[in-house]
C-alpha cells in the first residue's frame, strides 16, 4: 500500500510541477465556466426560463458548471496519454517495476489537481455573481472529495477510451461524442423533473448526475440534493473502482 501511494504520487507530482510551471492552460480553462455562469446563467435567470425552486437559476447552475469543468478537463487525459504513447513515455513507465495500478491511479490524482483548480475558479465566479455559498468545513471537505472523485472517474474513463482507440484522431471524434451527451443528459443545467421520462432514466445512469447532486447540496446554501450524500458518494466510488480496474487491465496494451 505504501508502495502504491509512493508510485502514484511520483506520477501525480509530474502534473503538479507542470501546472505550476506553465499555468496558461488553467487560465484558458477558466473562460468557459465564466461564459456559462455569467452569460448563459444570467440570461436564463432573467427570463425565468427554468424553474429551480427557492434558489435562483445561477445558484442552481453553479455546481452544475463545476461538475462540467471537472468533466471537460478530465476528458483531456485520454489525449495526453495517447500523446505519451506516441513519445514512448508510456513504454518507459510500463517497463518500470511500478505497479500498473499506481501508474493509472497517479493519472487520476493528476486530474484531481486540475479539478481542484477548476473548483477554485468556480468559487471565485460564484462570489462575483453573489451566489450564496456554504462555507462550513463539512461542505468544503465534501466538495473537495467530490471534485477529486469526479476528476478520477472522468479521467480514468478517458484513459480507458484512449486504450481502446489508441490514436488521437479517433479519440478526438469519440471524445466529442461522449462528453456532450454526458453533460446534457445530466442534471447539470436543468433539474431532473423537467426531463422527459426516457432522458431522466438516462440521466440517472450517468455518474455526472450524482456528482452534480452532491455538489448542489454541498456548495449552495439551500441547495437541493435528490439523493443522500452517502448514496451519491457510494455510487461515484463504485464507478471509480470499476473504471480503475478496467484501466489497469487495458493500460499495458498501449505499449504493445
Amino acid at each position, binding site marked *: 500500500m505504501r508502495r502504491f501511494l509512493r508510485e502514484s504520487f511520483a506520477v501525480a507530482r509530474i502534473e503538479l510541477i507542470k501546472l505550476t510551471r506553465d499555468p496558461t492552460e488553467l487560465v484558458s480553462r477558466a473562460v468557459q465556466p465564466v461564459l456559462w455562469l455569467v452569460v448563459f446563467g444570467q440570461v436564463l435567470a432573467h427570463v425565468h426560463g427554468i424553474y429551480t425552486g427557492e434558489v435562483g437559476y445561477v445558484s442552481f447552475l453553479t455546481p452544475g458548471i463545476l461538475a462540467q469543468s471537472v468533466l471537460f478537463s478530465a476528458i483531456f487525459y485520454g489525449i495526453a496519454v495517447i500523446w505519451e504513447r506516441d513519445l514512448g513515455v508510456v513504454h518507459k513507465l510500463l517497463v*518500470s517495476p511500478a505497479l500498473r495500478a499506481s501508474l493509472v491511479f497517479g493519472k487520476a490524482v493528476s486530474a484531481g489537481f486540475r479539478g481542484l483548480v477548476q473548483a477554485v475558479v468556480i468559487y471565485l465566479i460564484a462570489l462575483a455573481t453573489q451566489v450564496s455559498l456554504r462555507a462550513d468545513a463539512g461542505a468544503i471537505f465534501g466538495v473537495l472529495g467530490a471534485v477529486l472523485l469526479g476528476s478520477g472517474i472522468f479521467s480514468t474513463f478517458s484513459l480507458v477510451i484512449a486504450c481502446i482507440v489508441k490514436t488521437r484522431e479517433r479519440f478526438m471524434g469519440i471524445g466529442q461524442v461522449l462528453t456532450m451527451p454526458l453533460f446534457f443528459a445530466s442534471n447539470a443545467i436543468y433539474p431532473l423533473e423537467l426531463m422527459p421520462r426516457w432522458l431522466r432514466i438516462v440521466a440517472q445512469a450517468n455518474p455526472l448526475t450524482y456528482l452534480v447532486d452532491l455538489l448542489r447540496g454541498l456548495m449552495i446554501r439551500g441547495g437541493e440534493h435528490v439523493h443522500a450524500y452517502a448514496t451519491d458518494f457510494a455510487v461515484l466510488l463504485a464507478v471509480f473502482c470499476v473504471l480503475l480496474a478496467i484501466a489497469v487491465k487495458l493500460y499495458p496494451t498501449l505499449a504493445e
Partner: protein
Amino acid sequence: MNASSESGAPAIEASALTRRFGALTAVDRVDLAVRPGEIFGLLGANGAGKSTMMKMLTTLLPPSSGSARVGGFDIVREPAAVRRRIGYVPQLLSADGALTGFENLRLSAELYGLPRSERAERIGDALGFMGLADAARKLVRTYSGGMVRRLELAQAMLHRPAILFLDEPTIGLDPVARHSVWDRLRDLKSDYGMTVLITTHDMEEAEALCDRIAILHTGRVAVVGRPDELRGALGPEATLDEVFAHYAGGGIAEGGDFAGTVRTRRTVRRLG
C-alpha cells in the same frame, strides 16, 4: 531462480520466441542467447522484427508462443522480476521536455523504489557519468539531441540494471553526439559489467559498438556472430553491408512501413 551473471547462464535467452499479429508473424521461432557483459546488436531492416523482439523481452508485449528468460527470469511468468533487472531506452525521445533533467531522473528513482536516502546521490552519479551534471536543473526541452539521449541513458541505468535495452540509440544524432553515446555505452559495459542489447539498422554502429550481432530477416534469425567473423566468412574484402545483404537478401535501407517512417522522422525532428 539463478542469477544469470554468476552462474554463467545467458543474460538473455529466447527459445522459439514467436509473436503473431493476425496473419503476420513478426517474430518467428527465434532462438537467441546473449552472454552477460556483452554488447549485442539486433540488426534488420524496418519490419524485420527487431522492435517486436525488444518489446517481448522488455515485458511490454506477451509472446504468442515460445519463451524467454531475461536476467534469469521468465518474461511471461515473472515480469516484475524482469523489470527490476532491466533498463530501457525507447527509440523515441521519451524524456519529458517540460521537466528538468533532475526531475526526470527523480521520477525513475521513485518508480524503481530506490531508497530515499540514496536517491540524490544516485541521481547525481548518473548525471555525472553521462556528463550532464551542469544541465541537471535545466528544462530538458533546452537540451541538444545528444544530451537528451544521454539523459535517457542516465534514467535507464539509475537502478543499476543488469541488462540495458536500447532501441535505435543513435538514430538522428549528429556524429559527435553518436560517438559520445557509444563511449557511454562502452563505459557502462566496462564499469558496471552491464549487458547491452541494441537494435540498429546502422552498420557503422554495429561494427563500432557490438561484440556480437544477429541479423533478423522476416522475423527469423538469419545469422549470429562477431562482426569481423561474419565479414571474414564472406570473403577478405567483405563489408558488413555486404554481409547484411547476403543474409537479409537486400540492402539495409530497404523495406519499412509508413508508420515506422513517420516514427523515425518524428524522432529526427525532435532531435534537430
